[in-house]
């Protein structure tokens, strides 16, 4: 779903997509819907890793994670760490993942997002404020379900002149 024939991607577009993803993370939702909010920053990082790991690989994941930490007001560095780890796995398996059909791709993304959430859970626990509420895991499958949509939109945006 990301075989655009020519990808036209300047730093301006990278910044725009990153800011939109960050904004989507904090835009107010009704309280009931809040746990269902997809992890847009993680999806964006994964998409960039699959698209062009040389330009926007681990370092980009680290910076986006740090920005997310600042935005959400959590321990500085925790999203930076977890996003870098899943970006590493995505970069390693990039060629396989890109060849997968959409459903299988979503399944891999699901596994990566679960790893991300598990690492966050673990860091929270080590830092002494674990959130044991089961609803924290809801966002993982929801994000994976959003993957085809997000990847499709980003590919369109990238293919635009």
């Amino acid at each position, binding site marked *: 779903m990301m075989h655009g024939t020519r990808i036209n991607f300047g730093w301006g577009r990278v910044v725009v997509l990153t800011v939109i993803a*960050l904004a989507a993370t904090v*835009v107010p939702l009704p309280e009931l819907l809040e746990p269902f909010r997809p992890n847009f920053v993680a999806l964006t990082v994964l998409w960039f890793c699959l698209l062009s790991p040389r330009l926007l690989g681990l370092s980009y994941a680290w910076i986006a994670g740090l920005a997310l930490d*600042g935005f959400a007001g959590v321990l500085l*560095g925790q999203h930076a*760490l977890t996003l870098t780890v899943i970006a590493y796995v995505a970069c*390693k398996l990039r060629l396989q993942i890109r060849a997968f059909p959409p459903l299988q791709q979503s399944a891999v993304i699901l596994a990566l997002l679960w790893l991300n959430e598990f690492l966050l859970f673990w860091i929270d626990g080590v830092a002494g404020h674990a959130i044991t509420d089961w609803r924290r895991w809801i966002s993982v499958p929801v994000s994976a379900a959003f993957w085809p949509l997000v990847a499709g939109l980003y590919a369109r945006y990238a293919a635009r002149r």
Partner: protein
Amino acid sequence: MSSHESDPRPLLLGGPALGLRLLVLAAMAAGLMVADHRQHRLAAIRDAVATLAYPIQWAISTPVQAFDAMRKSLATKTNVEAENVKLASDNLVLRLKLLRFDSLEQENQRLRAARESSARAVQRTLVAEILRVDLDPFRQRVLVNKGTRAGVFRGQAVIDASGIFGQVTRAGPYSAEIILISDPEHAIPVQVNRTGARSIALGTGRSGLLSLPYLPQNTDVIVGDLLVSSGLGGVYPPGYPVAKVTAVERDPGQPLLAVEAEPLAGLDRVPEVLLVWFDSAIVEPEPEAEPEAAAQPQPVTPAPAQAPGDAPPQAAEPTLPPGDAR
């Protein structure tokens, strides 16, 4: 950078370079976390990130607020009239209460002077607007539009019109993060207004619920009791309403009561809060009053009859803990 098809570099990524980068970045992230968690040394980085994030947060919050304001300004005439009638009657009630306020305050100050205790009343307040952005959904935190530039500091008490709201956990230059009293990591020292029994109210993570897990079985507390801040700890001004008791579970098999309370402040409703400055003198327990408070769990169960005799300071002055006198 426009096309990657003719990129001459090797097709397959990975190998030592990628692994090395992961190690370096992970170590940097871990270092940041340790520095942030252990020493709180990252104030400069925090401030920078908060300042960068603020315009975006503001840009998200403003349309939402504008929409709310628009809906309000389009309210129908009947709604406005009804609200006006309600406000007028509220005003009457408040004025009646105020008639006695001045003389009572005078009297209170004279009595405090006689006891040589300072008043510790709120001296200055600052109205701050809550930004309409969602932080972590499982923590009860909000962002307000005033920061260190307005004199806000870490640990500052925050109240709203109906009770205690929370305290400032992080103050950036233009914004500050407030932890609500309902956050699972928050605890506020309270006392039962009716009896003076002191305890600690813990947040639960739900905005309508506090829990008081440290009250002994024989404590006199009933549903409907008002909990006010005791002022111990020096963060919150004493005597401000915190919550109303909604459930008391007396399980004889348990050593302690399970008490639930509902915060009075509109934690998930109000659009603005008050940051307060007060004379936050450290409260040191009065030498002879503290043992008595420690002996608070009285041996006999019918507490209402027993309480005035056993704990005279609390019973005499319900809103003032014995430790308040300095």
